[in-house]
């Protein structure tokens, strides 16, 4: 690229500003073409302009970043969304809009009269620009229509979905009263009242789940409380679209409220959110009703999200002494982070709440011990790093096995030279460690957790290598300390169990036992160790490698699907 001279030629007969303008424009053009700009080189070339050039270029780059971000967001940002407020009363097709009831992320709700049927209804006008395109809009409609088919006394029925005068709207039964959120603003509720309300909601949700519809955005502001105290679930099936395709940055979608959102909805990593996410949200609402606050509170949504993922909520009874233990158990059962520890259906939750109301034994108490055990052996959220290690661990197991058997064979051959063994175990494994790490790095950035694990491995290697000089100093025959290998390996597995997944406790226990057998049968000790430790690595490696393959296939399918739209 022979572009730089332009500025040079100019420098002879034009003013500084003209030179600066020409350089800046040229830089911006080149940057737009995707060229790498090294501003330092330009500054060296035009030392008299360097200070200002550097400063202006930084400004241009910041603006560029913002401009590009802006472009990647599909629709206008939420703050710029507009909706016309109708002068009330306003005739809107068959409806006469009479009073504004509320507004939310999607639009405004009006109390209205349906003229043809002469009845009171609520009409929700969807915000313009809510849908990126016709496709999304159709999907929204079909989902709202599906939701309209569920009929339950505790669900706000959608009676009509349509479009009129360029506005999407839907019409639903009008409920006199307020939302649960309004009620909660006045403080916590009694255990019995909360149990009754959530039991009713849970029954309604169960019916919807059986129809294959998940709410995905249960929160106090979506629960209406009628004047007689009957709860109604609103906005059914309407949140679905949002969770299915979370739009690009800067967009306006309401994904659900983090305060009541299940961890799997927050992380979007491993599992799809489904009916069990609704169970979590029900639990979060129950928690709020009992304590007067949502399970997690934080200064920013991001912190809130981290808490939802990693922390346990403050026990209900710490915040409200009057709540009894059974009730607390029910709430905590709903708020379990792993989905399989929650109630497995909304009906189960409703049954337990009814049992509580009748003073009968509740089921949430069952399996408390098994839950503790299950928790211990569960994968932590760091376990995902294992996915990139699957294949490597399988190779690692092979190399371990070979090294152990080879050493054992040398032992049988009566090789007594300590150096031979030492070289195999230090240089052999040192080289492999370097290769291993290099292979891992080639696959992508190394996370902090992986670094921690690499450290425990390095520590165990150092310990193993030092066994040889110790044997020498103590005057022991070579390899007589080999059972310690198993102890050291067991220890690294215990560390891994804490960081990654409880299943490694099993491996650790196995290795600890192996140490004794190695001491009892020194002749085959190393082979025994090799088989056990490599099996530990191989089985885990295979499991996660397989998981990775599955994920890759899934991703590809998703990509194809996107491409075909």
């Amino acid at each position, binding site marked *: 690229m022979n572009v730089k001279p332009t500025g040079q030629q100019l420098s002879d007969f034009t003013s500084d500003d003209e030179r600066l303008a020409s350089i800046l424009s040229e830089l911006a053009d080149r940057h*737009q073409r995707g060229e790498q700009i090294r501003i330092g080189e330009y500054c060296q070339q035009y030392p008299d302009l360097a200070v200002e050039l550097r*400063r*202006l270029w930084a400004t*241009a780059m910041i603006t560029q970043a913002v401009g590009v*971000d802006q472009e990647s967001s599909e629709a206008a940002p939420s703050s710029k969304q507009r909706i016309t*407020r109708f002068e009330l009363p306003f005739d809107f097709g068959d409806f006469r809009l009479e009073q504004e009831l509320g507004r939310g992320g999607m639009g405004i709700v009006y109390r209205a009269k349906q003229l043809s049927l002469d009845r009171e209804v609520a009409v929700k006008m969807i915000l313009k620009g809510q849908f990126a395109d016709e496709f999304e809009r159709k999907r929204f409609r079909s989902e709202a229509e599906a939701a309209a088919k569920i009929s339950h006394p505790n669900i706000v029925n959608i009676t009509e979905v349509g479009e009129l005068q360029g506005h999407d709207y839907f019409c639903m039964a009008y409920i006199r009263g307020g939302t649960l*959120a309004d009620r909660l603003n006045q403080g916590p509720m009694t255990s019995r009242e909360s149990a009754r309300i959530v039991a009713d909601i849970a029954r309604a949700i169960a019916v919807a789940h059986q129809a294959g519809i998940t709410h995905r955005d249960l929160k106090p502001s979506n629960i209406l409380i009628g004047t007689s105290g009957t709860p109604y679930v609103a906005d059914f099936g309407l949140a679905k679209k949002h969770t299915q395709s979370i739009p690009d940055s800067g967009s306006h979608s309401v994904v659900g409220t983090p305060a009541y959102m299940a961890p799997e909805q927050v992380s979007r990593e491993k599992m799809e959110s489904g009916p069990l996410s609704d169970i979590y949200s029900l639990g979060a609402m129950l928690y709020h009703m009992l304590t007067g606050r949502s399970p997690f509170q934080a200064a920013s949504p991001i912190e809130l*999200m981290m808490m939802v993922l990693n922390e346990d909520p403050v026990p209900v009874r710490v915040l409200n002494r009057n709540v009894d233990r059974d009730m607390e158990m029910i709430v905590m059962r709903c708020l379990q982070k792993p989905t399989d520890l929650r109630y497995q259906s909304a009906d189960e939750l409703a049954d337990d709440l009814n049992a509580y109301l009748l003073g009968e034994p509740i089921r949430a108490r069952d399996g408390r011990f098994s839950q503790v055990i299950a928790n211990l052996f569960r994968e932590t959220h760091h376990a995902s790093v294992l996915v990139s290690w699957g294949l490597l661990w399988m190779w690692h197991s092979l190399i371990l096995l070979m090294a152990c058997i080879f050493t054992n064979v040398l032992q049988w051959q009566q090789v007594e030279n300590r150096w031979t063994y030492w070289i195999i175990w230090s240089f052999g494994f040192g080289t492999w460690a370097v290769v291993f790490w290099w292979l891992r790095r080639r696959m992508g950035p190394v996370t902090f957790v992986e670094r921690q694990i690499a450290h425990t491995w390095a520590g165990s290697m150092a310990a193993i290598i030092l066994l040889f000089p110790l044997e020498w100093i103590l005057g022991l025959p070579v390899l007589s300390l080999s059972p310690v290998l198993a102890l050291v390996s067991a220890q690294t597995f215990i560390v891994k169990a804490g960081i990654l997944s409880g299943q490694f406790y099993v491996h650790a226990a196995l290795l600890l036992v192996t140490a004794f057998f190695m001491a009892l049968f020194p002749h085959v000790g190393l082979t025994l160790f090799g088989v056990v430790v490599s099996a530990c690595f191989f089985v885990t490696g295979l499991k996660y490698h397989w998981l990775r393959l599955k994920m890759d296939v899934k991703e590809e399918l998703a990509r194809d699907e996107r491409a075909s739209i």
Partner: protein
Amino acid sequence: MWPEQFKTQELLDQARQGQETAVNYLMDRHRNALKRMIQMRLDRKIQQRVDVSDIVQDVLIEANRRLKSYLEEGTMPFHLWLRHIARDRIIDAHRRHRASAKRSVDREYSLAVPSGQDHSSIHLAAQLGDHELTPAAAALRKELAVHVENALTKLDESDCEVIVMRHYEQLTNQEVASALGLTEPAASMRYLRAIRRLRVILGEDTNGGES
């Protein structure tokens, strides 16, 4: 922001040969960029009354009408030509609505994002959306965007225009010159001036000005 020009050229050639589908496709693929371009320039108050999509539609209809003469004698790149039509439409809209806007816009108002916990999710959605960025980085960028856009509103119109053209629409200096009817050196001078002023405003915003 504007669609890739190589393909546009191809479609224009096909349009010259009378292919109706090429014309439709050509118009369609400029729709989003046009919409953005108009959104960024149309007065907020007027945007409450007029749907930007309607203006886009008008522009495309007008373009369709004039396409024949453009294909025969047009010298300007296609997207700049569309921008040109859009500019006229924006000026029209401003002229038509400004008077009436004064009178009745008061009765309408923007749907401000309500505060409270339920709505922090709006913010969260934005942060979750970008797969490339960590949430913290996304938050930072959002904040940056707010800063820059605030600063842009403080610039006078012609400075703002050139910044938007260069960094939001990603037009080259040559294209800016052509769209504004300036020589290239004059366009680059205008860009320099705009960036300088932006720098000053941003500097005041963040650290109270730099010497």
